[in-house]
């Protein structure tokens, strides 16, 4: 009987070096130029919002009736409104409201939705049936009318606008996360962890939640833009933030349209600010989805 010596296979390729943070950013800009443009817009918006006090040339609340409807000039780059307030300063301070409402409403709505989605998928049975029906009811309720009604109940204040915008987000996210959690739950490793005697909270928190994080993140970035837009729409309809708060939607409501012919800058610039902000979040969210969703990656 001959004896064969055992040989271990050795890998010929070496592992690729881990990229530094700067290299990762460079790779993202190169692979997703539109996403990078979106990220740049978001960054600019954040800087303006945080440094509004230092950057804004005038006080956004103080008007000067002698300067009503002043055309864009070197003194007032984007002109003044019907109260003689500087439009540029109001837009800069408006970024704070837009970001605050956008972030808090979408984080609150998406997190609650994700929690309900995971619970619904993991518990199944009656809990799932009940939660699904509640989500059905909220989903078939027209979004803007629901926000309109909630805003009417709570009154015009920033925190109420957040609640009015967050609630309609909940069922949309719950649906998506529930579907993702259902497929994660069926994986063999989850079964193995359960067989090893892991408690329910441990299975949910350690094994299901991290695996539904990608759809959660995609929904979050997608909802950020629409939350900013919803705030503008509610303020435009007179149910969002109230005067004299510098909010982009509010700047376009009422007088802006009626003075549009006389002073078009009042109507044009806040609209550009809203569009650019939402555009930035949507571009970034879109590229993030392309990057995180294996089905959309280039083959």
């Amino acid at each position, binding site marked *: 009987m001959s004896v064969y010596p055992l040989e271990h296979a050795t890998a010929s390729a070496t592992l690729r070096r881990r990229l530094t943070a700067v290299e990762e950013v460079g790779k993202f800009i190169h692979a997703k*130029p*539109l996403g990078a443009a979106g990220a740049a817009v978001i960054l600019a918006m954040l800087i303006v919002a945080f440094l509004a006090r230092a950057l804004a040339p005038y006080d956004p609340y103080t008007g000067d009736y002698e300067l009503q409807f002043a055309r864009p000039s070197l003194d007032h780059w984007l002109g003044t409104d019907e109260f003689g307030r500087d439009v540029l300063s109001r837009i800069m301070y408006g970024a704070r409201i837009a970001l605050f409402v956008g972030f808090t409403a979408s984080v609150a709505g998406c997190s609650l939705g994700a929690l309900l989605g995971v619970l619904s998928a993991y518990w199944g049975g009656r809990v799932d049936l009940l939660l699904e*029906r*509640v989500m*059905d*009811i909220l*989903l*078939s*309720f*027209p*979004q*803007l*009318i629901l926000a*309109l*009604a*909630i805003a*009417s*109940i709570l*009154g015009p204040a920033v925190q109420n606008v957040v609640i009015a915008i967050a609630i309609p987000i909940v069922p949309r996210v719950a649906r998506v996360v529930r579907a993702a959690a259902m497929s994660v739950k069926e994986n063999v490793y989850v079964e193995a962890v359960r067989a090893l005697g892991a408690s329910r909270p441990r299975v949910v928190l350690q094994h299901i939640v991290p695996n539904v994080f990608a759809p959660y993140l995609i929904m979050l970035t997608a909802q950020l*833009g*629409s939350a900013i*837009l919803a705030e*503008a*729409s509610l303020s*435009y*309809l007179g149910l969002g933030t109230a005067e004299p708060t510098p909010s982009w*939607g509010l700047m*376009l409501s009422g007088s*802006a*349209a009626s003075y*549009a*012919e006389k002073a*078009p800058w009042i*109507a*044009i610039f806040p*609209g550009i600010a*809203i*569009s*650019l*902000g*939402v*555009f930035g979040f*949507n*571009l970034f969210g*879109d590229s993030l*989805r392309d990057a995180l969703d294996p*089905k*959309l990656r*280039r*083959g």
Partner: protein
Amino acid sequence: MASYLAKRLLLIVPTLLGVASLVFVIMRVIPGDVALLILGGDQGSHIDPQQLAAVRQQLGLDQPLIVQFGVWMWGLLHFDLGTSLWTGRPVVEELLIRLPLSLELAVLATMISVLISIPLGMLAAVRQDTWVDYVVRVVSIGGLAVPSFWVGILVILFLVLFFGWGPPLLFTPPWEDPWANLQQMIWPVVTVGYRYAAVTTRMTRSTLLEVLREDYIRTAWAKGLAQKAIVIRHALKNAMLPVITLIGTEFAFLIGGLVVTETVFTLNGVGRFVVDAVAHRDYPVVQALVFLIAFGFVLVNLLVDLTYAWFDPRIRYQER
């Protein structure tokens, strides 16, 4: 298929009952009293409490809430949407005045957006990560980013400044004067249609991208089929299901979503009617409209699911 249909129809009942209860509760929780508004009490003038009680009794608002809810539900079961507390006319009558305008706006916007979005979405998917894809994505993401009320304001501003045109105060139905109707509707349609087209283009692009990665598409390439045949005959057909869902649900919600556009263009449609009704605390009108929109949404969802089963044999076989 029959048991699937029965199950789906049964599930509609609790959803609609839930919507009806939710809108009823919300309207009762909103501060403000329609009787007080009718008597002009919101302007701070003194109101005789007896007079207020009489109006409340006349409107049936003195009844316990559970009775009011019962009366409303009983009416719904008999296809009676109630009477507007503000105008005193049946809600159906009020709706029929405004529905043709909103429906025309919704149908035209849907048609325009479908005609634009499907070819654009296809083009972007086939040319992924090229300049064509980038342009289509920027234009479609722009459609989602630009507030429709702002587009409306800009369109009106442009027309007023350059053509001296202002939005007409009265709606001309298409059967009375099609040309005048088109002139009135074209701008609101473009405003609504752009947003709608943006949503559909994005959906067409992403679902087509998913389908183009499937094995059977690779097989089709390997068989030597032309790109046109692969994209249109093999991929597009299978990518259409989520797009149809989106078109359906967007349409169902369009009526409620027209609120802002109708306000900008001073169109007396259903959307503006809802906003006014919420402001006037006109409970029967808001309740009826929300219920009808929810009913439309549930119905469209059901139709979409049935179309799915019809289009995709796998779903039919699962149900057997």
